C-alpha cells in the first residue's frame, strides 16, 4: 500500500494553478493504492491455487469481496480523473462479476415440489429438491437397476414448509450470527439453543400426514415396519464431503417417524456442522434439508467400499471395509474394520481380518444397541467372497457411471443380500512419485504402524485429547493424539499439523474430512496413546511412523501433491474464479485490442484502468499550464519514456520543449534511483545487429518500455516504471529528518508463467532483505519497505534499487529452473556488493521444471 500522509500537504506549494494537479494527483494515488491492493489479492489467490496452503470457500469469498471493492474504487477514481466515458468499464466489471458469481454454489430459492418423493421416481437431476444423497439413491434404482432398500425422500420443499410454519428462519440466523467460530464451547451453546428451538416446533399436519402415508406405502408387507432416517442436505456431497456432519436415526418405528424427522432437522445444527458450514461460509438458508426415509435393513454386516484406494489411486483395486452388524461402528471409528482389497473383476487380493468384539444391532423397542459378537465370529471375515465380488462389480459400475471414483455405503441383510445405501464422489489423494526420502536410520522412532488416512508428514508438540471437552485447549500446530476419531475432532482440523488415533480405519467420516483439510493422519496406531505429551514429534503419515523431534527433510520429502478428483472441489472453484479474475489478456497499450470490450478478467480491468489513468494524468492534460508542467519528459539514452511532473515547482522550472536532462532532475531520490539505472545501463548490441533486424523488422518492433512516469519534489518521488510486462512502483522520501524517510517498492506482473514470476519475486526478496528491506510477498506480488534511515543511506539504497530494477527486467522469462534462479541470485548479490548467502536457503520449495 502506498503510504499516504507522510507527504504533507504543505509541500505541494500554494499556487492556484497547482490545485488542479494536486486534486488529480490525489485521485491518481488512490487509484494506484487500490491497484496495488488488487494485485496483492490476486497474487495471494494464485498462490493458494498452487495447492500448498489450506483454504476454504470463505477465503475465496472474502478475498473476492476485497478484490471487487478495490476494482470498483479503481474504476471510480478513473472516472473522476478522466470523465464519464470511463463508465463503460463499470459495465464491463458488472458483466465479469456476474460470471464470477455463477461459479459459486448457487443461492437459488427452494423450488416447489411434493413433500415426499419415492426413490424410484428420482434421479440425480432431483438433487436440488431431495439432496444429493437421496437423489443418488434414486439414480441407482432408476438408471442402474442396483439393489437399494425401498424408501422415499422428504423434500426441501417440506423443510421450507416446516421452517415457515414455525417462523424459525430469523430465530436461527440470529443465533448463528452470534457464534464465535473459534470457540468450541460457544458452538456447543448455540447448537443447543437451536436444537431446542426446533424440537419445540411442530411439524404441520399436512406434512406429517404426507410422511406417514408414504411410510405406509413402503410397509404393506411387514407390520413391524422399521425405518432409518438420514439427512440429505441440499448441496451436501456435491461441494464438500459433509461426512457425518448430520444426524441420522436407525430403526425408527412408524409412530416415531414425524418426531424423528424433526430431530433429523434439528441434528443439522450440531456444533461440528455449524462449524463446518460457517468455516465454508455457507448459510443455513442455502442448506435446506431433505431427509431420506428408508425401510430399515436388519444388517448382518455393513461397511464402506471405495472404488479406488483414496490414498493410492494408481492402485486399481476396490477397497472394502466391513464390520458385523450396522455400519455405524465403522464410520464413527469405534471399531477397526475388516479390510479387503478386491480386483476390479472381483477377485480377492488381500484381506486383513480384524478382531470385532462388538456389533451394533437393532433393538426390539426401536433404536440400536451394542452387543458382543459371538466368539466364533469375532475373527471371521464379515463378507463372503461372493458378496465381495458383487460389491466390486457395483463399485466399478458406479465409478463408470459417475466418471469418478466413488465412496459407497452398503449393507448385507440377514439373508445375505447386498444393498447399497449411498454413493458419492471419493476424494482421491495422489502423492508425487519418486520423492527421495532422507536417511532416517538415526531418527528415534516413538511409535509405528497404523493406516494412512491422509498422506504427508506433520510436526508439532504431542497433545492428547480424549473427548470434545478437551478440544478448546488444543494448541495451534500440535500433533493431536486421540483414542478414536470422535466427531468433535473435526472442529480442530484446521489447527493441528498431524493427527494420530489408536482405532479407526481409512473409511471413517473423520478420514474424509482429514483428507479434505489435508491433515497428515494415521489411524489404528496401536501404541498411539503412549506418545509422550509435550514432546516434539514428526508424524510420517505416509510411512506410518512417528519420530521424535523435528525432521525437516522428511517434512519436505513428504510434501504431497494433491489431486482431488471431485470436480466440485474447492480448488476447482478457486480455479474457475481465477480464470475470470487473474489472466491478463490486455498486454500492450499499443496493441489494437487494448480496449474496454476486451477486458475479460478483473486483472484486465485493473490493467486498463491503470494505463488510462496514467494517460489521463500525464498525457491528456488539456489545460495549458498543466501541459507545460505535466508534459515533461526525461531526456535519457535508456530506452524508457518517463513522464515527469514536479509537485514543488510553481512555474516551468526546467528543460526546453518539455525535456528534462538527467542532471537537472532535481529530486534527490529520483536522482539516486536513476543513477543506479544508468550505472547498470542497457545491454548494448555489439555492432552487428543484423540478425535482430532481420527477425524484428516485419513484426513492428516496439520501444522497450512505455508510459513510465514520476511525480517529484526535492525530497520526494513516486516513480511508476513499466518494463515489458512488469510494473514497479517506487515511492521514496529522502530528507534530513530520519523519522520521515522511507522507501516503498511494489513489484508485480511479468510476461511469463506464474512459476517463473514467483522465482523472480523470491530472488528479489532475498536481495532486498540483504538491503534491509522488510518484504512481503504474495505469489508474484512483492512489497518492500525500508524506513528510518538517514539521507545518505536512503540515497545508497535507492541507487542499488535502480540497479536491481534494471537487472531484473524481464528476468522472469529466463528463470526456467531453481538452479538458474540460484545462479542469478549469487551473481546479483556479488555485483551489488551484498553478502553471498548459501544457495539452499533461497530455493523455492517447488521442484524444477
Amino acid at each position, binding site marked *: 500500500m502506498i503510504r499516504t500522509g507522510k507527504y504533507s500537504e504543505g509541500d505541494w506549494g500554494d499556487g492556484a494553478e497547482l490545485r488542479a494537479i494536486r486534486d488529480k494527483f490525489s485521485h491518481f494515488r488512490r487509484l494506484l493504492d487500490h491497484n496495488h491492493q488488487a494485485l496483492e489479492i490476486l497474487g495471494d489467490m494464485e498462490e493458494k491455487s498452487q495447492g500448498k496452503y489450506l483454504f476454504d470457500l470463505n477465503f475465496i469469498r472474502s478475498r473476492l469481496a476485497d478484490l471487487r471493492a478495490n476494482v470498483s474504487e479503481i474504476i471510480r477514481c478513473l472516472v473522476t480523473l478522466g470523465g464519464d466515458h470511463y463508465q463503460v468499464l463499470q459495465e464491463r466489471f458488472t458483466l465479469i462479476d456476474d460470471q464470477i458469481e455463477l461459479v459459486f454454489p448457487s443461492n437459488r430459492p427452494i423450488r416447489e415440489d411434493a413433500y415426499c418423493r419415492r426413490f424410484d421416481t428420482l434421479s440425480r437431476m432431483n438433487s436440488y429438491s431431495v439432496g444429493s444423497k437421496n437423489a443418488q439413491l434414486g439414480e441407482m434404482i432408476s438408471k442402474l437397476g442396483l439393489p437399494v432398500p425401498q424408501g422415499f425422500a422428504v423434500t426441501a420443499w417440506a423443510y421450507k414448509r416446516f421452517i415457515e410454519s414455525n417462523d424459525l428462519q430469523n430465530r436461527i440466523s440470529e443465533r448463528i450470527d452470534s457464534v464465535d467460530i473459534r470457540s468450541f464451547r460457544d458452538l456447543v451453546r448455540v447448537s443447543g439453543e437451536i436444537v431446542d428451538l426446533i424440537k419445540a416446533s411442530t411439524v404441520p399436519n399436512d406434512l406429517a400426514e404426507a410422511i406417514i402415508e408414504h411410510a405406509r406405502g413402503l410397509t404393506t408387507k411387514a407390520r413391524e415396519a422399521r425405518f432409518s432416517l438420514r439427512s440429505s442436505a441440499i448441496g451436501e456431497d456435491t461441494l464438500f464431503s459433509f461426512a457425518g456432519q448430520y444426524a441420522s436415526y436407525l430403526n425408527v418405528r412408524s409412530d416415531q417417524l414425524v418426531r424423528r424427522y424433526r430431530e433429523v432437522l434439528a441434528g443439522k445444527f450440531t456444533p461440528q456442522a455449524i462449524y463446518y458450514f460457517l468455516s465454508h461460509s455457507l448459510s443455513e438458508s442455502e442448506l435446506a434439508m431433505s431427509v431420506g426415509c428408508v425401510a430399515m435393513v436388519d444388517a448382518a454386516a455393513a461397511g464402506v467400499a471405495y472404488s479406488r484406494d483414496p490414498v493410492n489411486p494408481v492402485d486399481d483395486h476396490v477397497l472394502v471395509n466391513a464390520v458385523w452388524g450396522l455400519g455405524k461402528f465403522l464410520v464413527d471409528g469405534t471399531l477397526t474394520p475388516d479390510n479387503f482389497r478386491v480386483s476390479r473383476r472381483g477377485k480377492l487380493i488381500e484381506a486383513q481380518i480384524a478382531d470385532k468384539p462388538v456389533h451394533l444391532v437393532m433393538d426390539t423397542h426401536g433404536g440400536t444397541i451394542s452387543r458382543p459378537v459371538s466368539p466364533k465370529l469375532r475373527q471371521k471375515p464379515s463378507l463372503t467372497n461372493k458378496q465381495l465380488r458383487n460389491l466390486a462389480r457395483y463399485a466399478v459400475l458406479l465409478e463408470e457411471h459417475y466418471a469418478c471414483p466413488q465412496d459407497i455405503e452398503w449393507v448385507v441383510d440377514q439373508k445375505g443380500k447386498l444393498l447399497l445405501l449411498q454413493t458419492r464422489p471419493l476424494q482421491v489423494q495422489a502423492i508425487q512419485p519418486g520423492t527421495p526420502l532422507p536417511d532416517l536410520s538415526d531418527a528415534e522412532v516413538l511409535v509405528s504402524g497404523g493406516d494412512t488416512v491422509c498422506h504427508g508428514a506433520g510436526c508439532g508438540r504431542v497433545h492428547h485429547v480424549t473427548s470434545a471437552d478437551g478440544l478448546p485447549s488444543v494448541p495451534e500446530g500440535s500433533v493431536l493424539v486421540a483414542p478414536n476419531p470422535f466427531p468433535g475432532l473435526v472442529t480442530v482440523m484446521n489447527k493441528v499439523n498431524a493427527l494420530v488415533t489408536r482405532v479407526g480405519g481409512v473409511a471413517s467420516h473423520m478420514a474424509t474430512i482429514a483428507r479434505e483439510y489435508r491433515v497428515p493422519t494415521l489411524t489404528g496406531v496401536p501404541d498411539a496413546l503412549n506418545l509422550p505429551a509435550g514432546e516434539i514429534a514428526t508424524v510420517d503419515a505416509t510411512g506410518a511412523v512417528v519420530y521424535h523431534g523435528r525432521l525437516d527433510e522428511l517434512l519436505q520429502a513428504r510434501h504431497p501433491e494433491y489431486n482431488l478428483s471431485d470436480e466440485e472441489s474447492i480448488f476447482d472453484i478457486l480455479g474457475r474464479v481465477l480464470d475470470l479474475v487473474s489472466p491478463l489478456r490486455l498486454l500492450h497499450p499499443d496493441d489494437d485490442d487494448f480496449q474496454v470490450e476486451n477486458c475479460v478478467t478483473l486483472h484486465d480491468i485493473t490493467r486498463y484502468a491503470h494505463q488510462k489513468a496514467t494517460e489521463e494524468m500525464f498525457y491528456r492534460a488539456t489545460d495549458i499550464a498543466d501541459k507545460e508542467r505535466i508534459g515533461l519528459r526525461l531526456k535519457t539514452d535508456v530506452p524508457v519514456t518517463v513522464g515527469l511532473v514536479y509537485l514543488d515547482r510553481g512555474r516551468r522550472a526546467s528543460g526546453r520543449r518539455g525535456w528534462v536532462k538527467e542532471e537537472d532532475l532535481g529530486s534527490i531520490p529520483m536522482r539516486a534511483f536513476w543513477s543506479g539505472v544508468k550505472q547498470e545501463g542497457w545491454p548494448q*548490441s555489439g555492432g552487428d545487429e543484423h540478425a535482430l533486424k532481420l527477425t524484428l523488422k516485419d513484426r513492428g518492433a516496439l520501444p522497450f518500455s512505455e508510459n513510465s512516469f514520476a511525480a517529484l519534489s526535492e525530497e520526494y518521488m513516486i516513480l511508476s516504471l513499466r518494463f515489458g510486462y512488469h510494473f514497479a512502483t517506487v515511492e521514496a522520501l529522502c530528507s534530513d529528518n530520519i523519522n520521515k524517510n522511507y522507501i516503498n517498492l511494489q513489484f508485480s506482473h511479468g510476461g511469463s508463467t506464474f512459476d517463473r514470476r514467483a522465482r523472480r519475486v523470491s530472488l528479489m526478496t532475498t536481495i532486498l532483505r540483504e538491503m534491509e528491506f522488510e518484504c512481503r510477498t504474495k505469489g508474484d506480488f512483492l512489497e518492500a519497505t525500508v524506513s528510518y534511515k538517514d539521507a545518505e543511506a536512503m540515497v545508497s539504497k535507492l541507487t542499488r534499487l535502480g540497479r536491481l530494477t534494471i537487472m531484473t527486467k524481464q528476468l522472469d522469462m529466463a528463470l526456467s529452473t531453481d538452479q*538458474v534462479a540460484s545462479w542469478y541470485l549469487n551473481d546479483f548479490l556479488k555485483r551489488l556488493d551484498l553478502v553471498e548467502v548459501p544457495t539452499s536457503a533461497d530455493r523455492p520449495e517447488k521442484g524444477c521444471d
Partner: protein
Amino acid sequence: MKMTRAGDLMIPLEKYPHMPHWFTLRQAIVEMENSVLEIDGRKSLPRVVLVFDEKYQLVGLLRRRDILRGLEPEFLTDKPLDYRKKLFDVKVDPNLSEISFDKILEGVRRRADRPVSDVMIPVAGTADYDDHIVKVVYEMNANKFSLLPVLKDGRVVGVVRTVDVFREFAKLVI
C-alpha cells in the same frame, strides 16, 4: 493406432528455456548450463534456447554454436556478408590464438556481454500444434532443423526436438 501430433510430442513452453533478445551471451550460457530437461525420466541439457521479444513473440533461436561464434575473437570470425574479397586477402590461421591466451580470454569475457540478438538465428520453420508427426519429420529433414517451435493459434506453445520425434519412431519400429 492414434496419429501422433506435434502437440503430443512437444515440450511445453513453460518447461523450455527461453529469454528476451537483449539478454547477454553470458546469461544464455547460464540458462543452458542450468536448465535440465527431464522428459520421460531422461535428463538432458537444452541445445537451443528460444529468444523472444518484449511482446513475447518468438524472434530467434540460439544454439550452442551461435554462442561460441559470438565469443570467438574478431580476427577469427567469418567476414560479414557484404565483405568483398580484397587483393592480398589471406585466410586466417587459427593457430594465431596461441599467441596470447590471456588477451583472448579477456576478449571472450567482454564478448560474453553481447546481447543474444547479435548471434541468434532467425526462425526459419515452425510446426503447428496439430501437425502430424510425419510432417514434423519432413520439416526437420528438409531444412536440417534439430528443433521446431510449435505454434497454436499463432503463439508459441512449445518445441519439438529431433530426439522426441526419434523416440516416437523408435516406439513404432522396435
